[in-house]
């Protein structure tokens, strides 16, 4: 019996090794015409579309990674080979510049985010956001204001309206805007702040549930910058995709997902 176990153990070890060896060449490897792009979670859907158009138009290949910019920053410091950061803020590109992990140009604001108060159920959020002053909910989803710009913007709105103290005990903190959406979409939080891009339908209206478009004077603006990272400083494909974010096609896609464009 022990012999049999040893045999099985060593066999499975070999199988694992074999899998490891055979799949290794499939790991992402930068080719001359391939660009590694780190993309902020809230820009996932539009970036997929833009990258597809970019590949069609230029013949370059893109490898897209989605996540929070804080995590990307930590990974960059550890030597991650990202060439472009499509950020959800301006602070992270600034921090990357200070650390020498990014280059000065090209860098610009490609989109301006819009904040929305959203519920998955119809009739919960009224068109003026008066629900914020009520006790009609138990859980309010907010992306962590320390980590996510949309979370910080949502917090600013509640403070400006004077409802922060009343709502704070009912807040459930999401790690990022995607998780805030999950909490609300699954009905576990009755409402919360998300990015308009997450809930906009193909017709440019809210796809489901109820929502209040937060007036932009209630919170600091949400500019999203793209920046060239040091590993991509000599890559033509990296510079090309950054330039492409300003193309007519890309701007149309960005608008269709409910972002504003910079002037």
């Amino acid at each position, binding site marked *: 019996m022990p012999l049999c176990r040893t045999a099985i153990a060593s066999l499975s070890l070999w199988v694992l090794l074999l899998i490891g060896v055979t799949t290794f060449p499939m790991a992402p490897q930068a080719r001359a015409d391939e660009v590694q792009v780190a993309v902020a979670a809230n820009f996932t859907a539009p970036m997929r579309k833009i990258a597809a158009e970019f590949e069609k138009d230029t013949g370059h290949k893109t490898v897209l990674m989605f996540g929070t910019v*804080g995590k990307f*920053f930590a990974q960059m410091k550890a030597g991650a080979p990202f060439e472009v950061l499509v950020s959800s803020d301006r602070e992270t590109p600034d921090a990357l510049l200070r650390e020498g992990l990014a280059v000065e140009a090209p860098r610009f604001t490609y989109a301006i985010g819009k904040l929305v108060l959203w519920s998955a159920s119809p009739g919960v959020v009224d068109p003026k956001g008066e629900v914020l002053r009520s006790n009609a909910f138990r859980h309010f*989803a907010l992306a*962590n204001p320390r980590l996510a710009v949309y979370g910080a913007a949502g917090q600013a709105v509640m403070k400006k309206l004077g409802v922060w103290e009343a709502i704070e005990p009912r*807040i459930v903190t999401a790690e990022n805007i995607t998780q805030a959406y999950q909490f609300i979409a*699954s*009905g*576990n939080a009755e409402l919360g702040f998300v990015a308009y891009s997450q809930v906009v339908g193909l017709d440019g209206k809210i796809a489901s549930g109820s929502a209040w478009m937060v007036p932009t004077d209630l919170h600091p603006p949400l500019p999203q910058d793209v920046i060239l990272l040091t590993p991509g400083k000599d890559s033509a494909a990296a510079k090309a995709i950054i330039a492409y974010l300003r193309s007519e096609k890309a701007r149309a896609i960005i608008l269709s997902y409910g972002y504003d464009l910079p002037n």
Partner: protein
Amino acid sequence: MLTGDDVQAILLTLRLAATTVALLLLIGTPIAWWLARTKSRLKGPVGALVALPLVLPPTVIGFYMLVAMGPWGPIGKLSSALGLGTLPFTFTGIVIASVVYSMPFVVQPIQNAFEAMGNRPLEVAATLGANPVSAFFTVALPLARPGFVTATILGFAHTVGEFGVVLMVGGNIPGKTRLISVQIYDHVEAMEYANAHWLAGGMLVFSFLVLLALYSRRKDRVDA
């Protein structure tokens, strides 16, 4: 050094792990007993079900938990009907999630201990006039003691190390669902690496000591 929030997260994590292990010993022992002794055709499926958290990514468990415990899910409907409201973002919610998530780490060592014991001790007890219940408590449980110790240590340690599931159903509420692992994640994301190091280093030392205790004990048994 550790902040007040860090200490709160540590105490909460210990409370969660203790509650989870206590519940799992209560629920897991009958399951382990049944799995060890049954000849039912259901043994395979039930064993596989118990072992699922070993192979499933925590995101899968967390996602299904979030949906199932939500107002439109089966558990959520049940808990609402019982007047408990929905369970995500509550301590009860993460206890339930942890019980599921740490189940195999408690059930399997106990099951192994019961299986290793065989039928003989119980048969002897029966010939000596013990009824099945008292045979279980006076013979089977003491004989399976090493299995219970391993189960307790592994279940506790595994719950302390929980992250993905709690992140998804917890909502990161201080004092209620913000565990050590979530707190470390927050520190790292906010680039507060010094704070992260204190907690992460503590976890590393804790985990090593737990495993050291476990493996040293096993060695003693082999030598004896």
